[in-house]
């Protein structure tokens, strides 16, 4: 019963949005806008639920003394401090303390974590991009192709013909491959979306 109600609601919403998108029913535009605003509210509420769930999970970890529980304590403390400081100051996210947390903790932390992907990439290339690996030749060819079209140095060291070759590679073979990927994934999304709406998420085969 619940699944049928949910499926019907999803189907009606999909029809409304599609009709609006293709200009088939201009009168539905205000309703569709309301649906979009609802999706915004739902997403915001989902974020709140996510934060509450996160706190619950980590409180449980601390209470049970599971492995790495001190990290959970650090997470909960950071969450409490950030939320507390943001709510205590009427300026909200523009409060100096919140701005300090962003500048001194969040921004450097995020940048550092992302910078570590460079080391990960270096290790992965050394260990796994090898000709004896399954598909190693193809990965190597792809890597060389990307290096040819994106390396920062060829325009300096090589004749202008090289830059034109890189442009040609981007405009023709790379673009052809990406268009294929884009079209394929779009068609697959349409097919799966329609299939789920019509047959229901629990259907198989």
């Amino acid at each position, binding site marked *: 019963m619940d699944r049928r109600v949910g499926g019907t609601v999803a189907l009606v919403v999909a029809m409304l949005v599609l009709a609006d*998108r293709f200009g088939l029913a201009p009168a539905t*535009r205000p309703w569709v*806008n309301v649906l*979009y*605003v609802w*999706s*915004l509210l*739902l*997403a*915001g509420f989902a*974020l709140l639920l996510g934060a509450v769930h996160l706190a619950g999970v980590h409180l449980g970890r601390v209470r*049970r*003394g*599971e*492995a790495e529980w001190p990290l959970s304590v650090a997470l909960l403390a950071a969450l409490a401090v950030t939320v507390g400081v943001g709510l205590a100051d009427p300026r*909200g*996210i523009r409060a100096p303390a919140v*701005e300090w947390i*962003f500048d001194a903790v*969040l*921004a*450097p932390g*995020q*940048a550092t*974590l*992302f*910078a570590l992907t*460079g080391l990960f*990439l*270096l*290790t*992965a*290339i*050394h*260990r*796994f*991009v*090898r*000709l004896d690996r*399954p598909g190693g030749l193809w990965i*190597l060819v792809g890597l060389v192709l*990307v*290096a040819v*079209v*994106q*390396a*920062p*140095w060829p*325009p*300096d*060291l090589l004749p202008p013909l090289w*830059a034109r070759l890189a*442009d040609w590679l*981007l*405009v023709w073979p*790379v*673009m052809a491959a*990406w*268009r294929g990927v*884009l079209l394929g994934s779009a068609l697959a999304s349409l097919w799966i979306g329609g299939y789920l709406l019509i047959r229901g998420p629990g259907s198989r085969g």
Partner: protein
Amino acid sequence: MSTFGCPHCGQPNPLNASFCAHCGTDLRSLPRDERSSQEARPSGDLPPAPEAPLPGEEGRLLAEQPWLQPETVESPSPEEERLPEEQPWLRPAQEERDAMEPPTAASQRLVTGLQGLLEPVEEAGLALETPAQAPDTPPPAGRDPELLQRWQMRFAEEVPLADPVPTPMAPPPGSRRGYGMEWIGLAVLVLGLWLLGPPTLRSAPHGWPGTQAAYQAVEALPIGASVLVDWAYDPATAGELDRVAYPVLVHLVDRNAQFVVVSQFPGGMATARRTLQAVQVERLGPMQARTAAQQVVEGGFLPGGAPVLALLGQATELGLPVDLEGTPARERAPLQALQETGPALALVLAAHSEDVQRWLEQVQPLNRVPVLAVTAAAADPVLRPYWDSGQLVGLVSGYDSAQAYARWLEEPLPFVEEVRIAGLQRGQQLGFWLLVVALVLGHLRLLGEP
């Protein structure tokens, strides 16, 4: 409290224990469902010694609790059990020892039930309900220890957590020496070449197709035009994106553009505020920059992904209900102009190509506003088809394009900014060469393998 027996000493421990309270064995690798399968044991009670169990019961008991099996292979000490986790290169030896033991029903489970509520999933070709075997019994077909070991090695190699080339801590006599010195030597060589290379190498940056069109699109904007900005990056990628976006933002500030900024990244709006402020201070001076900053409409963080973007395409004011001071954003001047005439340009500043694609799919078909993308170099190949098809009026990607863009500005960028971009370009080159070195070293090691 429910307990389970330590696989090493058999003493009871809490279900969520990480280490045995009696012998210190690391219990973290023991799956939860295997612990809960012995939950019925009362707390504090040692498992009663089996009184000559029936053959059927014995088989079931051994299948469920393989550690009770008579030991034919010398059981590892707690230190040895910890070794594979701390020193993954010793794992093959551990796997070899495991392969010598007869596989039990527990070891065949690929996916185990949730706290024992669900039946375990069977691996194709392997029956779960098999009686326990004596250690000297030859394994049945499909469970050849060599085959199992080969498959284990194969899967272990394909996940990037395992070391595909087992490296002993101390190389045995006569073996090849390690590659540490080669690594260091080559890294020093690359660093030296990078540092000592001719400084005037970059006489003219390579402006990729799309950069000049981007400049012309901004130059063609009327003075004071409304620009809708999708700030699709946060501090994680700001190191590159701030520098790439800088000349474009400078150009827009020079054209006195009115910014309406939204972001689908939680940290995007704060990043936008800082970057825009820096650009405004640099171009307008501190006093005027303060006034200009107040004119920026901050749409804030928009959760919800692609579906919400469509709202920006057909009713932008509904997506930006209230600004940070509590004033409805629709009442502010730039947004009034936005409602009357629509934005003159949409600027998408994105670290990943997907954010530009989303905008082009969800927003651009609805408001028909030309889109200019400023992206990381890695996003360039994916977005080039959109530039080629005309869906993007301009594409600025990577340091090269940013530097080329900056050279067309009427008033050049400050010297500090140019030095900063040049330094980052050198860093990018160094990173590229290090990747090449890693690739070559990987294959050298491959050649040296027996």
